[in-house]
């Protein structure tokens, strides 16, 4: 007989121990610890004295340790490996997450405004910097190395974790490649060749000053590579972006090419469920991201007006505006908050609420694209895995359970909703644009019947 369950509280949180690590995994964690210890030792002064050994220990510890730790995924049968995530002090806003959040945020503050405090740590990157760029390291080389390492190591993790899904493998290889080659090696080589430091995988308006008058005049006077870059940037911003987004959706950039997306999809993958799925968050998102887009468009226009009129119109105002934008959006939002808050708000805070490039791609994706996530008839059981693991905070289930396709400006096409769905309900597809919104027209005498 069913008993009256009234006196229980259904909002319970279960607990279980998360940290059951095998021997290999423990050794891996220890290796990572030793790597970061070397970095700390460097930071406190030894970096200037013994850069090479400390650099070697740092890289071997962190990379080698991580690879051992990934046994956690490779030793288990290929499949969705989300067990115990919500019991983890790291992955569900527990003590570890808060500590990590503070460390990451603090690191960005030091990096942008007090790089001198990290002087000794920067020195261990000298050998690498000389090899690549033929000059000593600065904080940006150190940061670029951290960033690329994070994408590479965690890219390997993503490939192991999602090894049963070819889409995830191809996509992870793609983002890792673009970060390593276009955002790390090529800019370094350009510096070595005394050319301007150029990032071929970032375009305006994400690379906000890419088409500002100051940059354009610098580049066009810097030689053929600079001139080529101007054409490249303009062609990608204004020609390739709409075309590629029409055919493939914004995913071609956001989860296949972009470095911010690259970090989010790799290092940020463990935190993807932290995004806020409420309707309220969606409202805030639309206000914020479009405001940033308006700001950068107006700013760029102002700067050009200012440059054409030689400062006659709003000269001081536009340069103050430019400095404010660079500080508030370029540094605080995309860096400090965007990455610093990974363990607390998920990896796509910047991409979702701030990135003007995502805003443009989103508008194209929503209104002029062949991309959609198709919902598979009536198979949805409303379990919520898709919404939970959508890093962009899209309530995927809301659409899936009523048999409606998902066409949302913010969807970066990571494909994880489709991966975690236990019922095979979701498929990322490019297809004809007519009735992309409604999904297949299903008649009620069949058992599918769109629900609303």
């Amino acid at each position, binding site marked *: 007989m069913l008993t*009256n369950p*009234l006196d229980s509280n*259904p909002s319970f949180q279960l*607990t279980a121990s998360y940290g059951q690590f095998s021997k290999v995994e423990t050794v891996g964690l220890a290796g990572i610890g030793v790597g970061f210890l070397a970095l700390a030792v460097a930071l406190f002064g030894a970096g200037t004295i013994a850069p090479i050994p400390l650099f070697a220990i740092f890289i071997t510890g962190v990379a080698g340790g991580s690879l051992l730790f990934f046994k956690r995924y490779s030793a288990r049968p290929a499949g969705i490996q989300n067990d115990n995530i919500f019991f983890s002090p790291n992955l569900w806003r527990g003590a570890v997450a808060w500590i990590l959040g503070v460390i990451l945020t603090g690191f960005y503050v030091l990096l942008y405004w007090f790089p001198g405090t990290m002087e000794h740590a920067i020195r261990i990157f000298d050998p690498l910097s000389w090899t690549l760029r033929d000059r000593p390291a600065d904080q940006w080389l150190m940061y670029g190395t951290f960033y690329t390492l994070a994408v590479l190591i965690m890219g390997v993790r993503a490939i192991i974790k999602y090894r049963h*899904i070819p889409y995830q493998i191809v996509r992870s290889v793609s983002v890792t490649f673009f970060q390593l080659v276009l955002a790390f090696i090529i800019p370094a080589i350009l510096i070595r060749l005394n050319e301007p430091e150029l990032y071929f995988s970032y375009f305006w308006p994400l690379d906000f000053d890419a088409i500002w008058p100051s940059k354009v005049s610098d580049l066009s006077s810097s030689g053929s590579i600079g001139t080529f870059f101007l054409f490249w940037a303009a062609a990608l911003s204004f020609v390739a972006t709409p075309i590629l987004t029409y055919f493939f959706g914004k995913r071609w950039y956001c989860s296949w090419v972009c470095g911010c997306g690259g970090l989010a999809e790799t290092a940020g993958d463990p935190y993807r469920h932290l995004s806020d799925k409420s309707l309220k968050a969606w409202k805030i998102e639309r206000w914020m991201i479009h405001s940033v887009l308006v700001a950068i468009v107006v700013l760029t226009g102002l700067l050009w007006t200012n440059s054409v009129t030689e400062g006659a119109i709003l000269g001081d105002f536009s340069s103050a505006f430019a400095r404010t934008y660079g500080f508030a959006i370029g540094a605080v939002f995309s860096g400090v908050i965007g990455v610093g808050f990974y363990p607390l708000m998920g990896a796509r805070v910047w991409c979702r609420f701030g990135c003007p490039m995502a805003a443009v791609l989103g508008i194209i994706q929503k209104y002029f694209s062949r991309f959609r996530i198709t919902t598979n008839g*009536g*198979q949805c059981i409303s379990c919520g895995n898709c919404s939970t693991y959508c890093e962009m905070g899209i309530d995927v289930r809301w659409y899936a359970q009523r048999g409606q396709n998902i066409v949302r400006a913010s969807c970066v096409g990571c494909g994880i909703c489709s991966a975690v769905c236990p019922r*095979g309900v979701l498929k990322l597809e490019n297809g004809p644009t007519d009735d992309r919104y409604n999904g297949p027209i299903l008649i009620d005498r069949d058992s*599918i019947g769109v629900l609303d």
Partner: protein
Amino acid sequence: MSRIVIIGNGIAGVTAARFIRKAGDEPITIISAESEHFFSRTALMYIYMGHMTYEHTKPYEDWFWSKNGISLVRGWVNRIDHTTKTLFLDGGRPIEYDKLIIAVGSQPNRFGWPGENLDNVQGLYSLQDLQTMQEATSGIDHATVVGGGLIGIEMAEMLHSRGIPTLFLVRENSYMDYLLPAEESQMINNEIRRHHIDLRLGTELKEIIGSDGSVSSVRTSDGDEVQTGFVGLTAGVSPAIDFLDNSGIETNRGVLINEYFETNVEDVYAVGDCAEFRDPEIGHKKIEQLWYTGRRQGKRLGLNIVGKKTPYDKGIFFNSAKFFTIEYQTYGHIAASADEATGSVLWSDTDSRRLLRINYSRADNTVVGFNAFGVRLRHEQCEAWLHGRAQVEDVVREISRALFDPEFTRKIPGGLQSSSPVST
């Protein structure tokens, strides 16, 4: 305006409420004892496994209900007086209705096994069950699951996620062989064992042995006694309608209804897991205990109540499940054992644990059903084929139109040629 009261906030009751609300603004009240808000029962396992929290399993945000003018009452209905149209609640004021929908769902079956009332012995249906399971399984070093159905294998997977060695007793000689053909069933046996579950086929529970009121071991039909700290009983569910005894509402196993969800009492309807059709169409079940059938029934009932009265049409059957890492979808009808009248085209790749079966009627070569393991099929396409009585050779040739796997997934070869093609 008639006051509509629904007992049970599961998928059936909630869907009915939504369709009634879409058509008008009658006052709607949903009463449920289990939780204040609608949550997804199908996601219970994921809460235990730490893939989600309870909050994530709610299909609608909490503001949804008041915004749509649906009042929620957390309460337990212990008696219905249909002459005065009043519900009596444990610890709450009586509630009057003009139209009543009974959508109270199921409860786990118990078969009178010796020892089944010991502590740490339970079924899995409700949030409360999950809570007791959490308490009962923390710190134990062995668990037992009895009953080889869908909930049984989910329970085994749940225990596995916490690293608890698990004995899985299945009465049948192969997992779910009453529903699945031999190849499919064998594939799932292998999958269970690949996850180090101690699967014992053709083995039944004889006795649960306790000490100090709590389970300490189980005795199996092959005479083995296994020390265990928890026993999950998952031998099916049945309608949770004990509270209707002597209410005047006719019941059998479930609340008896016609094809309009009407009970023998005027203005009282029943829907979902707890409802039993008096005379279903041939080949259809009397009681449908699935998520999508609850949704489908709820929708039809909602529309009926707002005046678009049409009999319930069960349509072409479909369902899905996931067995550890293997996804399963089925459309139409696939019998567990082959018969003379039915042919079968089978493609399988044991290494990647993928399988696709298409059954057809030998009489006219029309397709009758699909079974897909590790392969996702497009519901709309399969249904169109089944509905249009497509020829099996056309379906086999054009199978790629039905594939719903993520991009870059290895396609099933055209014409279904494979390493082990079987056509019987």
